[in-house]
């Protein structure tokens, strides 16, 4: 690890002032579960690391009706899991956090960090850049081993998968992010926070180098809402999912009045599936309907050569998440 300056501001204004307006010069430290590995692997080389854990207003969880849920960016995954209101009203979020099966990571890793962590693409982590190109400009993902890479949104040049555990569930619930920067506070839907970079200069999320995510705001649960997250993960021990799906359905009687279906770990961004949502709208959820929605979700998926199996896994994740949400089907 290279030497860097370490600062620990106590207000978000101080933090933002300490952050550079150029990517790479400074890095934000929250739980550190990703940043430390990036530093040790020499993937990031900041001259300054800004610790945001001492900023009081980034902490805490509050829930009320009709305001909904507010999660501070430095709330840990374990704090999220331990919160009774979240467990009661947002099961898809809790199930997603539970998929992080390491107590160490749950105790250190933060909600904001989960959203802002960098991809696990093994070419990126070996220093070949976010778009994983060799010196001649060819994509190592396409030439090499892409068994864990994207099956959706993989037209290129980005082929990594978004690693966030919580984002699909947050998007399914219609959550928004509050971001603080030199020009003050702005708010965007979580769904619009993520984007597929088109060049090595772009990041995989809508954040300026001197902005920090401060809060996550989740709308109150609608009457008749059911929700779930299903992860396909090889190991029970800490392991990256191969495909996940989070769904939030609002039922009117037995019928689906509105639906959100968001896949994880299958595309460079958390992947909302309007096709799957359309397949559910107005229907009574049966096994056939869930299956039709699952098929629709992967209709546009394509293999990069070694990840065809992930199409099947994504399909299963969607179907099982829908079935789990309405109270049936296989559970982990």
């Amino acid at each position, binding site marked *: 690890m290279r030497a860097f300056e370490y600062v620990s501001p106590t207000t978000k204004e101080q933090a933002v002032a300490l952050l550079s307006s150029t990517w790479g010069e400074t890095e934000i430290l929250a739980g550190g579960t990703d940043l430390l590995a990036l530093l040790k692997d020499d993937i990031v080389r900041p001259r300054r690391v800004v610790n945001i854990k001492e900023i009081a207003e980034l902490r805490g969880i509050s829930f009320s009706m009709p305001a909904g849920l507010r999660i501070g960016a430095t709330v840990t995954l374990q704090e999220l899991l331990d919160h009774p209101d979240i467990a009661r009203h947002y099961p898809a979020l809790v199930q997603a956090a539970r998929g992080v099966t390491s107590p160490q990571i749950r105790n250190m890793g933060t909600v904001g960090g989960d959203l802002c962590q960098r991809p696990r693409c093994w070419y990126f982590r070996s220093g070949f850049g976010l778009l994983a190109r060799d010196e001649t400009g060819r994509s190592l993902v396409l*030439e090499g*081993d892409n068994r864990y890479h994207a099956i959706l949104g993989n037209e290129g040049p980005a082929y990594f998968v978004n690693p966030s555990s919580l984002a699909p569930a947050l998007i399914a619930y219609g959550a928004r992010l509050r971001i603080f920067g030199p020009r003050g506070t702005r708010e965007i839907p979580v769904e619009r926070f993520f984007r597929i970079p088109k060049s090595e200069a772009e990041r995989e999320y809508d954040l300026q180098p001197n902005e920090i995510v401060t809060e996550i705001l989740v709308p109150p649960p609608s009457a008749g809402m059911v929700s779930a997250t299903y992860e*396909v993960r090889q*190991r029970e*021990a800490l392991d990256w999912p191969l495909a996940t799906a989070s769904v939030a359905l609002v039922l009117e009687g037995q019928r689906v009045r509105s639906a959100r279906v968001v896949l994880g770990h299958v595309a460079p961004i958390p992947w909302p599936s309007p096709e799957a949502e359309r397949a559910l709208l107005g229907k009574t959820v049966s096994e056939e309907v869930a299956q039709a929605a699952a098929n629709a979700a992967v209709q546009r998926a394509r293999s990069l050569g*070694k990840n065809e*199996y992930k199409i*099947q*896994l994504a399909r299963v994740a969607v*179907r099982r998440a829908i079935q789990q949400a309405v109270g049936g089907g296989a559970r982990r």
Partner: protein
Amino acid sequence: MAERNAMEMAEYKWPEPERRRLIGKRISRVDGPEKVTGRAKYTYDVNRPGMLAGKVLRCPHAHARIVRLDTSAAEKMPGVKAVLPLKKVGDEILWAGDEVVAVAAVDEPTAEDAIRAIVVEYEKLPHFVLDTDPKAAGERVRPTAEQVEGDPDAAFREAEVVVEGLYGASLITHCCLEAHGAVVEWEGENNVLVHVSTQAVSGIAGQMAGPLGVPAGNIRVKQDHIGGGFGSKFGPDSWGIAAAQLSKMAGGRPVKIMLERDAELMVAGARPSYYGRVRVGAKRDGTVIAWESETWGTGGIPPTSPLPLPYVLRIPNQRKRHVAIVTNSGPARAWRAPLHPQACLLTMAALDDLAAALRMDPLDLLLKNIELAGERADVYREELQIAAELMEWKKRWHPRGDPSPGPVKRGLGVSIHTWPGRGHACRCDLTIHPDGSVEVKLGSQDLGTGTRTAIAIVVADTLGIPLEAVRVRIGDNQYPPAGGSGGSTTIGGVSSAARRAALDALDQLFARIAPLLNASPDQLEAWEGRIRVKEDPSRSIAWEQACARLDGMPLTVRGENPGPGELTTAGAAGVQMADVSVDIETGIVRINKMVAVQDCGLIINMKTAESQCYGAMIMGISYALYEEKIMDPATGRMLNPNMEFYKLAGLADIGELVVHMMTGEKYDRRGVIGLGEPPVISPGAAISNAVANAIGVRVPFLPLTPERVLEALAKKGGSHARV
């Protein structure tokens, strides 16, 4: 002086069962508290005064030639104390991660900065890392001579059923949790002190003497504890030699080089991959008569050797061909039971497929042919029976393809294995002090198996004293030499040497005490802290009082394992069964239960013997389901040199593990046999067979990843292969 006479020499044997207070009992490790409290020091924990941090610059390319090497900037950096090129311009590099330059600096960050300041230019050369298809390997194949026994052609013509299958196991690493490494320092011009993570404390100095230009006797080697070796830690390694050379360049200051996790996985050894097409011919009643196999695989640059096929069962007619594939995957090293897990998989999976074709229970097929196992056939028969009971095999087994509804299918699999486990050459010095305390010294090592405890048990039981009264000193090459811990040879070597030393020491003590008890030495025995007359136990003397008669002079005797005999032999037999669930929609395999039934002759410590089986099953589950050294066709590099995508089983992944050790007169009679390796051989085969039993189709290669399981199901074309 009560030398054992020639007749008595034949009397080195283990005590009768009723005379064993400790041997064979379930005894906790003597160093357990040290380990769980963190007081135990591993090489990684060794921090010497004035120590420098050593780092190694590694080549990022899988195949390249060095065209420029400039270390001058690193040499000038403040805090950098030594820079040592390990390669020169013109040298060819044959795998990514190979060592190019080593540096020593005042701390790790400075050493890393120095590494980054070194300029190396490479001419990249074509690399090749694919191992699953010899036809695609072009000039990189190295065929070995065909081996034929009996008349395979006639036997296949005679066979009523012939099955053919494809099986294999990917390249995997050792993944020692304590990485390889050493801390080395010079004491003056001619003496070297080495702390090293090693499986061979007594063997290191001899390997360092040449490269360092000092007599082996001047090289002191120490190691208290080791965090895993599995066959990969027998030498000082190039980085250990480099640490010594850097230390010398830095005026003798200690230099520590421990491999980083990525280097550990890239360059510190791998288990070669093996794949094979196997044909087996049998009579309709299940009698196996013919074997044919074509195998291939890679262990990097040196060609892989043929596997011991068919495994355990000596099928009378065989033809075997092997082709090694030479790749830039990095160096292979012995991996816990070299060649056996792969040979076991190829054989036991083929026999399982044969059973399926015959619509036979594979357990019955094994029993039907068990005489082919030779002299251990009876042991296997007994073990198969016990394992079947522990698994409730007969009640729960079903033919291939779990017919129950739903996506989760359950299945059972069985496998058998063998291993020699002969005790290695070993010497020890046993000292009885006048205060009654006892010390045993030997240049052995505790690979994690409980060697200290085993030695203490043998000595304490022989001398009739409590375990706590014995102090075992190992991990220092100034003690009498003991063999390396490889091939499951340690327990046979150390227990035999310790038993003989303790019996000889006791004889000498008896000679001193006999007159006091009005008896002859041969009438005495040591029992529960006293030396007493066998026929009249009321005539006795406490152990401490007896030792006080040593006139202030400690009594030291040398014990030596002379090789196989009464105390130690070879040839362990084991059986394992697996019960798995497979989700046929996701291809994910979960272990419900595994049963290990294992023989290793006379058991010194039941608890650590069982621990070996538990640990081996966990390691086996890991390589059966998760582990693969993933080599990248594009860059030639290992893509997963980390604990994130180099996956090991966690506690929640291993299911219920049941161990049954074979005991009794028939097993005791064979003396002590090594156990470290045998139980890691069968898990891959047993789990692969259980998966085939669950889903109705063979998944050819380990690890049994979701991708491979789904692919096998798709090929089978079953309606449940896709949702």
